[in-house]
């Protein structure tokens, strides 16, 4: 292999710093006592503790999934801190966030101050196990939109939380969803009432800070009839040479004619160039198109994490409902990703569209895994899937695992796949037109991801383009 492709060096991870802040943590390990302790710290109602304990007991009977195309040492679940929160400093007002935290998020480019905020984006900020602030709550409340931390939702809107929690991802759905259901500590809750078009983008920023803690958050978004919301999610973590577990659950519910657009730019710490450290990102995301003519659209840009294991899915229950999945997954160095989606067609004339773009560099491994399932009653259902892989250099891998299960003969299912390679010849072609390697790679990558990036909200698209550039800087140099 040419030296040009071998000099594959990442610019240092710029979110890798750690904030020195006093934490209120529970002891390491997992048991019913720990779960009771977490529940107690959060002053939770009895039903929620029951939900946790049931999930925990179920989890004990489950085993870790081994089918993903990723390799990692066995996780010691007793060696993780399940609750870690920055210590409150006797401040009651929402405006008074610990200055140390303010500085942290300023450094990350996430303004918690509404005046400094991006116009039109409300942010819920999660630091380790808890939400530290939510901006623009008042403005949203005027429109009838509830946007708050999960803990507040449990306190202020228990009936809503109780009705929908676990309704899309049941506590026993899979190993990590069960674990999350037992120990989740916070997250974001969002409720859009009937006929309301949410006046601004909602967003949650996740930050893992403590070395030995995991992050187990839950996001629940409910969009009532004829409503619309666009939701963004961003993540970073400090650079540690150990691995941290992030096992989140996201549930979306869309009623008649409602639309939820959910976008993620994931930049968890990916480990160093030798594969030491990094986040294990084992996440369950699922949306239920419950109502007729509803629509759920997932757009994800996955650039971080040592290991990514996630399949944002749509259950298309309502007739004519639409599910979309647009994904760019980039792996470099020793990163591993096994990601894709599930589109489950139950209602009539349901439609789904999958566009997946995998980019592998270094010695990384990138798999697309997707299920398209057409139920017996899904008359006229349609799916289109396109899975493209791009290899940079010749030491990385890309795989595509499509699963198609069709139980209705009127359905149309299309799958297209391609693999391309940024190789010496392509770069030489650019060079012979005066274009240097860095610019060539950026042009090739931007062309490759274009079909996905056009679905990101504007500010995110700009961020994501920059992020890809940084991640691949010098990767073919």
């Amino acid at each position, binding site marked *: 292999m040419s030296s040009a492709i071998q000099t594959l060096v990442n610019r240092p991870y710029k979110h890798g710093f750690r904030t020195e802040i006093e934490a209120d943590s529970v002891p390491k390990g997992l048991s019913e006592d720990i779960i009771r302790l977490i529940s107690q710290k959060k002053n939770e109602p009895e039903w929620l503790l029951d939900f946790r304990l049931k999930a925990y007991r179920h989890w004990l009977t489950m085993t870790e999934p081994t089918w993903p195309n990723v390799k990692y040492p066995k996780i010691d679940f007793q060696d993780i801190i399940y609750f870690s929160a920055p210590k409150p400093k006797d401040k009651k007002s929402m405006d008074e966030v610990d200055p140390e935290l303010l500085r942290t998020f300023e450094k990350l480019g996430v303004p918690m101050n509404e005046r400094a905020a991006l116009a039109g984006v409300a942010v819920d900020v999660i630091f380790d196990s808890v939400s530290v602030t939510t901006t623009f709550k008042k403005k949203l409340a005027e429109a009838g939109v509830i946007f708050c931390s999960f803990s507040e939702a449990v306190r202020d809107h228990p009936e809503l939380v109780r009705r929908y929690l676990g309704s899309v991802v049941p506590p026993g759905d899979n190993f990590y969803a069960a674990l999350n259901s037992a120990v989740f500590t916070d997250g974001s809750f969002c409720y859009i009432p009937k006929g309301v078009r949410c006046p601004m983008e909602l967003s949650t920023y996740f930050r893992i800070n403590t070395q030995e803690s995991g992050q187990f958050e839950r996001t629940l978004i409910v969009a009532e009839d004829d409503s619309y919301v666009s939701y963004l999610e961003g993540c970073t973590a400090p650079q540690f040479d150990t691995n941290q577990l992030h096992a989140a659950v996201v549930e979306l519910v869309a009623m008649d004619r409602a639309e939820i657009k959910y976008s993620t730019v994931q930049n968890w710490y990916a480990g160093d160039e030798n594969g030491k450290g990094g986040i294990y990102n084992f996440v369950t995301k699922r949306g239920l198109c419950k109502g007729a003519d509803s629509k759920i659209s997932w757009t994800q840009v996955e650039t971080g994490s040592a290991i990514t294991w996630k399949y944002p899915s749509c259950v298309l229950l309502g007739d004519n409902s639409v599910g979309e999945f647009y994904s760019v997954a980039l792996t470099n160095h020793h990163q591993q990703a096994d990601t894709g989606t599930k589109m489950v067609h139950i209602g009539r004339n349901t439609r789904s569209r999958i566009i997946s773009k995998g980019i592998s560099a270094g010695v990384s491994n990138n798999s697309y895994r997707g299920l398209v399932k057409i139920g017996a009653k899904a008359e006229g259902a349609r799916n289109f899937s396109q899975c493209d892989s791009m290899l940079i250099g010749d030491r990385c891998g890309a795989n595509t695992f499509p699963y198609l299960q069709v139980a209705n003969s009127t359905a149309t299912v299309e799958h297209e796949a391609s693999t391309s390679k940024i190789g*010496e010849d392509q770069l030489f072609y650019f060079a*012979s037109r005066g*274009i240097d390697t860095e610019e060539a790679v950026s042009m090739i990558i931007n062309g*490759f991801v274009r079909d996905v990036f056009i679905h990101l909200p504007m500010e995110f698209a700009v961020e994501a383009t920059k992020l890809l550039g940084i991640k691949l800087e010098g990767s073919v140099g």
Partner: protein
Amino acid sequence: MTKQQGNGLLEVRGLTARVGDRQILKGIDLAIRAGEVHAIMGPNGSGKSTLAKVLAGHPSYEVTGGEVLYEGRNLLELPPEERARAGVFLGFQYPIEVPGVTNSAFLRLAYNTVHGSRGKEELDPLEFDDLVREKMKLLQMNPDFLERSVNAGFSGGERKRNEVLQMALLEPRLAILDETDSGLDIDALRIVAGGVNALRTADNGILLVTHYQRLLNYIVPDFVHVMDGGRIIKTGDKSLALELEERGYDWVAREYKAKAA
């Protein structure tokens, strides 16, 4: 541009190169002066395409000896993109596909990079669009080509026209065209050759690598070189190409061996 005195545009002396362990070029001597068209012919595997790629700086080939002067400068010490900016152009035998990157974006970046390095102002997309459409007329290209991905799904003829279009945009001083004629039907050949001829000036040089003399009916060379076994074994004028067409290459090789013995 000042005319190079005596040296001409390109001066290749004793050039040897290999790929992996295989020595392919075994001592090439070649001089091209401004305004000249040279054709290199020869059987498969004689090293013609390797010479073209080595001159353009392909990283797979290692130069093991000799020197190459371009406008009096040491060409071999420049990375390929700087050779391109300095006015060396390679028309590819097999132009590469770049899915997702539109021709218009690619061509504009190439144009602005190369001409920018020569101190010209960048063209914005609209200005560039006017320019490229004008050049495309010369090659009778369909305008929808601009929105298609670079070479993706192009026919052989479309790819070769695209190469000549790039040459027209970049205005090289030394154009090396590697089997630009292969895979073209007679109409396409005429159009492509017409495109190349239109770019022929007293100030630039053209090196044609070709298998067949038919291209040389349209682009008439000043010199014809025969390559075999990594060396230029005979040089003549355009009549040599006709003789090769009639008699094949074997006699040239025999003659060369006899001389060497």
